[in-house]
């Protein structure tokens, strides 16, 4: 059976997976059609400042009088882009490190795992702040920084799976038929770790979305790029929390949590679907 069809077939029985996909696809839809959904230009002044939510301004307005609903709609784009691409970077790095480390063992494994330990122990967010201060917080840099610092979890998980899969007889059969190490790693071991990698990738996206929001919130990165974290950043520096302007901070906060939860649900559904032990028949 085609793996995709297999997944879709199983997905129908996984409520958590359906909810996850529902949330994610809704946000993807919003991101793509933001110009159509938004009633105003998010950067234009469309009314008086600090207007309460109303039919005119669904989420009210900010200190400049810009429409917060429109800003939130446009603000969906960057979390999604950063989340997926940074997760891609992290997963590819983690997968490669895990594969090589687990397969070859010995000294390369020791070296790679000590590096992994280092990145696991160092508080990533602090390192990210330092690095982006050094190299500048453009969108690309933020993606590379988040991706480049969040691969250790994937590497650990992949390595532990490789350690068990490489002992399977089919690996020895391939070896005895002159299969090279690279061949065995990518043809035999990789397909068997992919399910776990998918689950990890979805978690990495959730992690990256959260991290990006956190970075922008504390002012790291380009604060002119519209994103949920950015809205929260301005809500904070304008002191809206203490002045009772609740409609500024709350919507982007809820959106971040929602999208993150969507990806966590997706990850859980990958795990239950691809792991035969937890799969419901």
């Amino acid at each position: 059976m085609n793996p995709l069809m297999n997944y879709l077939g199983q997905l129908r029985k996984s409520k958590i997976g359906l909810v996850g996909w529902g949330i994610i696809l809704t946000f993807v839809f919003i991101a793509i059609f933001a110009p159509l959904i938004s009633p105003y230009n998010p950067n234009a002044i469309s009314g008086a400042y600090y207007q309460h939510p109303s039919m005119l301004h669904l989420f009210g307005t900010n200190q400049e009088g810009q429409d917060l609903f429109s800003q939130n709609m446009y603000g969906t784009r960057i979390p999604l882009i950063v989340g997926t691409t940074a997760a891609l970077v992290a997963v590819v790095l983690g997968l490669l490190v895990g594969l090589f480390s687990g397969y070859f063992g010995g000294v390369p494994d020791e070296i790679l795992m000590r590096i992994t330990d280092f990145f696991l122990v160092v508080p990533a967010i602090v390192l990210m702040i330092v690095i982006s201060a050094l190299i500048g917080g453009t969108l690309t840099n933020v993606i590379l920084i988040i991706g480049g610092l969040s691969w250790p979890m994937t590497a650990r998980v992949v390595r532990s799976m490789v350690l068990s899969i490489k002992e399977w007889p089919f690996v020895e059969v391939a070896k005895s038929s002159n299969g090279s190490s690279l061949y065995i790693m990518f043809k035999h071991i990789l397909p068997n770790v992919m399910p776990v990698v998918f689950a990890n990738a979805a978690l990495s996206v959730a992690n990256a979305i959260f991290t990006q929001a956190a970075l922008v919130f504390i002012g790291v990165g380009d604060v002119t790029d519209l994103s949920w974290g950015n809205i929260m950043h301005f809500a904070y520096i304008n002191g809206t929390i203490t002045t009772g302007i609740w409609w500024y901070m709350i919507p982007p906060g809820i959106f971040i949590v929602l999208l993150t939860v969507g990806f966590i649900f997706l990850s859980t559904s990958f795990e239950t679907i691809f792991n035969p032990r937890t799969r419901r028949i």
Partner: protein
Amino acid sequence: MIEASDVKKYYPVKNTLFSRTGRYVKALDGVSLSIDKGVIHSLVGETGSGKSTFGRIVMALTSPTAGIVKIDGVDLFSLKKKDLKSMRKRIQIIFQDPYSSLNPKLKIRASITEPLKLNHIEYDEKKIAAVVESVGLKPAEDYLDRFPGELSGGQRQRTAIARAFAISPELIVADEPVSMVDVSIRADFLNLLKETNRKENLTVLLITHDLFVASYISDRISVLYLGKIVEESDKNGIVGHPLHPYTQALLDSIPVLGEGEREVNIKGEIPNPIDIPPGCRFHPRCPFVMDKCRQVEPEFREIETGHFVSCHLY
């Protein structure tokens, strides 16, 4: 075809932080074996006797601690990488467990064509179909595009055998090939091996714990106990006229209809290969144990023509 002399494989016992044991698990403790071309030779022994280790050494999947393995006169472990590659074109292995010897993510077609692709042997659809059908998976097109998970255990083992046959090897190492398939189709598999052996002059090293399986198709049988061969003869010598008490016990453990008491009983289990008993390694379990057995290790001698045994009784 295969000539192994005094092959040893010791695994160091893992040292812990506070103690250095310096001890070894002696999986193979000096095995010499020679198998002629076109012969089905069985290596029989209990779990822990080292028989699978020997198979892995012949496949060059692990190297021996000491000793020499020659294939057609060439030392397997001094081969250059390139020569090892062409050597491996001639050898295939069949494992016991058809569930783990096929990659669950690869279609049957991919598993079977793998040795052909990796060894740069040309093939076409017809050849694949012929190989698959020769092991009893008919019609081939019903099986080729399925995943191992969609096949039964027996069908999977047929696939594993088809994969081994695909490159027309000269030597097959079959490690317990039938111990996990239903008794009803065991004979099928063994006949398949025998048939290929006759038709293509295939040499087979059959590794099994089951003397009955071995006697069904083998020309020669070696009995392995704790990493050492205790008796070797042609099939009739082992089955009809076993000399070593261990072989006798193995034979008596095959249930035969209408027979009552077993003649030779052995006690206990195979000892830990870290602490191999002194003298004859079988003496703690031997019903005919003598004082000499506890001190002197018996030599492996030819008692009758072509019938070797290491036992002080003879």
